[in-house]
């Protein structure tokens, strides 16, 4: 009887094995590359805000402390977003007439708070508490990056759970003296591990507990 397939089909059959392997590798590779890229993680991506607020201007330029606006960061889970009144302490004079400042002005006039877009947004099943971190020597810049250099605010880290665990597994790698927590320019010293271990002891960071599921998921 006549052959069902032309001779070239043999070539196809053999190479199909390689194609299958390459195909699977490619799909998995591309999928994970996209998943870790800023497209999904949003690291370094500006969010649209009602007003183009610049941390750089306020922190580096004017020398404001983080806590001037984020007032509850040392005492509450939530760092706090400033009330319009806080803005108006300066902006009743500065920029007051400019068009880009209008949303703040409207908020001031109507008494309706500003609606900023969250940049660092954790899922609701994570119970994150700013105060415990700040009080145990975890600096702002460790998680938020050099906010003082951001013209428009963006996420500096992925906030993936695996990223949280790097510190929860070994806080000595990241912990700093409490008086340096709000220092945006702080860099770990060359003997960070040694210093870090001391601080972990001194601040009573119970490393054994930090990996309990219920520390963050209650």
């Amino acid at each position, binding site marked *: 009887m006549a052959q*069902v397939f032309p001779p070239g089909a*043999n070539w196809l059959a053999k190479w199909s094995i390689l194609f299958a392997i390459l195909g699977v590798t490619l799909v998995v590779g591309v999928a994970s590359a996209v998943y870790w890229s800023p497209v999904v993680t949003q690291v370094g991506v500006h969010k649209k805000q009602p007003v183009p607020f610049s941390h750089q201007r306020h922190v580096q330029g004017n020398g404001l402390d983080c806590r001037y606006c984020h007032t509850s960061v040392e005492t509450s889970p939530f760092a706090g977003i400033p009330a319009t009144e806080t803005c108006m302490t300066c902006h009743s004079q500065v920029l007051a007439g400019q068009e880009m400042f209008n949303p703040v002005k409207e908020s001031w006039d109507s008494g309706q708070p500003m609606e900023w877009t969250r940049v660092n947004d954790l899922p609701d099943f994570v119970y994150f508490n700013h105060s415990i971190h700040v009080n145990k020597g975890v600096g702002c810049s460790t998680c938020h990056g050099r906010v003082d250099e951001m013209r428009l605010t963006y996420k500096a880290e992925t906030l993936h759970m695996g990223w949280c665990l790097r510190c929860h597994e070994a806080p000595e790698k990241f912990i700093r003296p409490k008086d340096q927590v709000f220092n945006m320019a702080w860099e770990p010293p060359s003997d960070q591990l040694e210093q870090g271990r001391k601080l972990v002891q001194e601040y009573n960071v119970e490393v054994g507990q930090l990996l309990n599921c219920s520390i963050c998921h209650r």
Partner: protein
Amino acid sequence: MNKMSTAHKSYPEALRPVGELIEGKQTYESITDSITSVVLERPNPPGWMLMFVIGGMFTCIYGMSLVYLFAAGTGIWGITMPVAWGWAIINFVWWIGIGHAGTLISAILLLLRQDWRNAINRFAEAMTIFAVACAGQFPLIHMGRLWVGFFILPYPNTMGLWPQFRSPLLWDVFAISTYGSVSLLFWYLGLIPDFASLRDRAKNRFAQLAYGTVALGWRGSARHWFRYEMASLLLAGLCTPLVVSVHSIVSFDFAVANLPGWHATIFPPYFVAGAIYAGFAMVLTLALPIRSWYNLKHIITARHIDLMAKITLATSMIVVYGYAAEAFFAWYSGSEMERTMMWNRIFGDYAPAYWALILCNFVAPQFLWIKWFRTNVYGLFLICQFVNVGMWLERYVIVVTSLTKDFLPSSWGTYHGTFWDWMTYLGTIGFFCFLMALFVRFVPMIAIHEVRVTHHKMTGEHH
């Protein structure tokens, strides 16, 4: 001719093998014809239609129960505290156990040079793959959230988390996926020469292309056969430990936990024997009607049926030994918890299930000592149904009696499957039948070349 049966003269009369491995006056041609014609020429018999339609219906019911499950969550099942493991794990273990006979037949009996496996191995391997397909769905659906099913796999994820490598539930993932893929490979490898036969015999262009594609260019050259034999031996070698390891690991799901009634060393061997026992009963359940629908009684002969019945009997004895050992351990442990559990199992709320299990797995197979039950298809079919039910009850009794009454009397409770438990379970049986029906319709259900080897050994006929 007939060298094979004369060697068994020393057996007692009641246990002497019956019949031949191939009945009637056959040639290579007639053997190939009777198997390929099922796929290529013959009309679908009414029995097949029934299996296809009812199987298809229950597959749809299964689909509906899954949609409801994913929409509403596992609350539609009977699971509750303290019985958080319900029918899902019972059905999982039941299905995975059924698969084991296929692997035993295809791998261990191949290595042991048991020629009688040649007529039933393809069939039994298909049963294995479909049973594993049914079993494998339960670990996924029992979460009620299919979309997070990939969490059972270890992969580098954004959470920096790995599954618990010390948990037998993770070992299950590896055991089942290895088992499924090796079985599928072995099955497909054996099919290649037979797909080539179908390709060569098919008249219809579409069938030629379809079978030609899956035959991977098989031409039956000496080199092809040499490689085929080597690959099949290697895969048989890989499958052999799996027959023992997979169900041992499944038994660890229970034995590693320290619950009364689960924490027993007898579990792995007793589960493996139970798996083979259940599997042979299922092979018979399927083979008895299908060989009659398609007039294949000259290839799957009374001899095969008789041998399978004997294995069922032998493994039933091991399983019953397991039941006795469990009871003995409970008493010998001196642990009040273990003794109470065993007392509850035998005389408590679930005593009817336990005694039904004894009836199905101990009393019913005893009839297989009698030759009439091993050769009469109706009698044997009936006994196999007892075994199928019995092996499900066995897992039910293990799961439910231990969980309803564990260490803390304040948390004791009761458990019963709901309507949706039933629909999910019957749905997988329907799905299994549906796949089996497709298999016998589109794939040569008996390994043509291997039966021809048997024919050669029996008659010495040359091409």
